[in-house]
């Protein structure tokens, strides 16, 4: 993208005040189309967050509005000291990291499979995209009632055929049950990004490596993986942003019970059911800090992994 800087010949006349004014006018004219979108975003996203920040310093239960008082960092102390909230921080990390890493690995395997030519490749790609295109609440309902149900769910039905056990998936393994449903939804997303990455490889370089007798594994290690690095980072980053905020699956499959309440669900519960506005806001601020940490942490881990790979190569 080349920035259209004013041509040098236009510079002398900008020394005169008239020239400067017209230059400034032109500057505003090019900036004007940006303003509606900018102002809209600041009003609808930044202002509420500032309000959340302010409310987080007040002791405020909406059932007792007269008892509202400034509480300093008390809410934060309470949030960090409350075992239930601390658990939900831990749950959020477990849920996000497990789902992102699993769907990234599965997505990579599927992308490698789909990168080869075989009969019906387009159909298989369409089949694989489908889970991502089911409305998240519907997908969660599908897993909860139609697959996990211990009496007549599909999973136990298939186990029945091979004489396997009949586990009660949700009450037996609540967090993995939520994670599995999310992995099913997010693997196609990762696959799409990584497949685009694979298809943007330098084909001539691959061919040259093959002619030189490089094995498939060597090509993968030394050519494909370094090239995919950006795409893996992008998938991890975008996946983390969405999964850290996940509400639908937790709300639908377990209603936040059995130790599956993540931070978004806990914040929702704290003000929607317990009416603790101050506490909910403090927890909300912590979610923001957490997602910033996760985004940078995820990126750093992935980058360092690749640096090791490259330096060992």
């Amino acid at each position, binding site marked *: 993208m080349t920035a259209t800087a004013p041509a040098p010949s236009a510079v002398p006349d900008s020394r005169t005040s008239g020239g400067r004014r017209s230059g400034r006018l032109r500057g505003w004219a090019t900036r004007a189309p940006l303003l509606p979108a900018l102002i809209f975003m600041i009003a609808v996203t930044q202002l509420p967050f500032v309000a*959340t920040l302010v409310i987080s310093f007040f002791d405020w239960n909406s059932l007792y509005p007269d008892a509202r008082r400034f509480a300093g960092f008390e809410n934060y102390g309470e949030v960090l000291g409350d075992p239930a909230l601390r658990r939900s921080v831990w749950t959020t990390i477990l849920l996000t990291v497990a789902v992102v890493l699993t769907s990234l690995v599965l997505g990579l395997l599927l992308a490698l499979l789909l990168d080869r030519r*075989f009969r019906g490749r387009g159909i298989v790609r369409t*089949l694989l995209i489908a889970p991502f295109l089911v409305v998240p609440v519907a997908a969660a309902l599908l897993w909860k009632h139609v697959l996990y149900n211990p009496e007549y769910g599909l999973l136990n039905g298939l186990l029945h055929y091979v004489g396997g056990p009949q586990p009660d998936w949700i009450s037996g393994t609540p967090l993995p049950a939520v994670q599995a449903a999310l992995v099913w939804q997010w693997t196609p997303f990762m696959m799409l990004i990584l497949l*685009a990455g694979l298809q943007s490889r330098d084909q001539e370089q691959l061919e040259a490596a093959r002619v030189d007798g490089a094995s498939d594994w060597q090509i993968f290690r030394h050519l494909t993986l370094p090239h995919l690095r950006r795409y893996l980072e992008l998938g991890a980053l975008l996946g983390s942003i969405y999964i850290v905020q996940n509400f639908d699956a937790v709300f639908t499959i377990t209603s936040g019970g059995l130790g599956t309440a993540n931070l978004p669900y806990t914040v929702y519960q704290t003000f929607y059911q317990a009416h603790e506005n101050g506490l909910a806001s403090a927890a909300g601020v912590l979610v923001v800090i957490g997602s910033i940490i996760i985004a940078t942490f995820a990126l750093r881990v992935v980058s360092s992994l690749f640096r090791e790979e490259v330096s060992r190569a």
Partner: protein
Amino acid sequence: MSTTAVRTRGRIRRGAGLGLVAWLAGIVFFLPVAWMALTSFHSEEDAATNPPSFTAALTLDGYREFFGAGGGASPWPSLINSTVASVASVLLVLLLALPAAYALSVRPVKRWTDVLFFFLSTKMLPVVAGLLPIYLFAKNTGMLDNIWLLVLLYTSMNLPIAVWMMHSFLSEIPVAVIEAARIDGARLPTVLARVIAPMALPGIAATALICFIFSWNELLFARVLTGVVAGTAPVFLTGFITSQGLFLAKVCAASLVISLPVLAAGFAAQDKLVQGLSLGAVK
């Protein structure tokens, strides 16, 4: 026989095997969706059998139940609400995003990357971070249970995505083409209408579809800010969370009907899906 010939033949045989593995993976991932579709056409008695029945008689009872034949709540109001919220917010998003993307890519303003990254950073701000003040604001201004509040919020949710996508699509238009039109004496409106619009149209369509999908899927805002009047389709689906009696076929019918617009939009935009989901970063 040379070693390369042997190696090539091995590659081909392995390739066929891997094609089979890919097919298996596709079937495994699609199985829950296929099973949901099949169950939606079964009677409730056949839907709740163990082991599962693949050959039970087909019926439309699940769909009749879902559309309120059995005296349950009709899904139509929620489907209409979802349509209004999604379509209106997509239009508003395009109205705001197109000029912004133009200013960021065709004739970039100074420090345009900062502006782009500001838009991206708002996506990193979790929804729950602003939910409570929005709820309190809506309560005090009488905007609770009003579909137009959702339109505004869905617009804010999708505007960064749209700006990034449109920026990447518009950046693909060669500057030389635009310059040539200007040298020929075309004024800005003409350049916009005759040169930029036709080239940007596929990108605009893809952006609209992606934003539509995200709005149609949204639950948290809708759950907290709507009630009996403005509830959307995902909120209607939350009525199925607690299971009562025999209702598997009905749940599957509901899930399938409500997912159909997204499945249609996604398959229609399949080639642009990656570019949209990665905010235009991946082509």
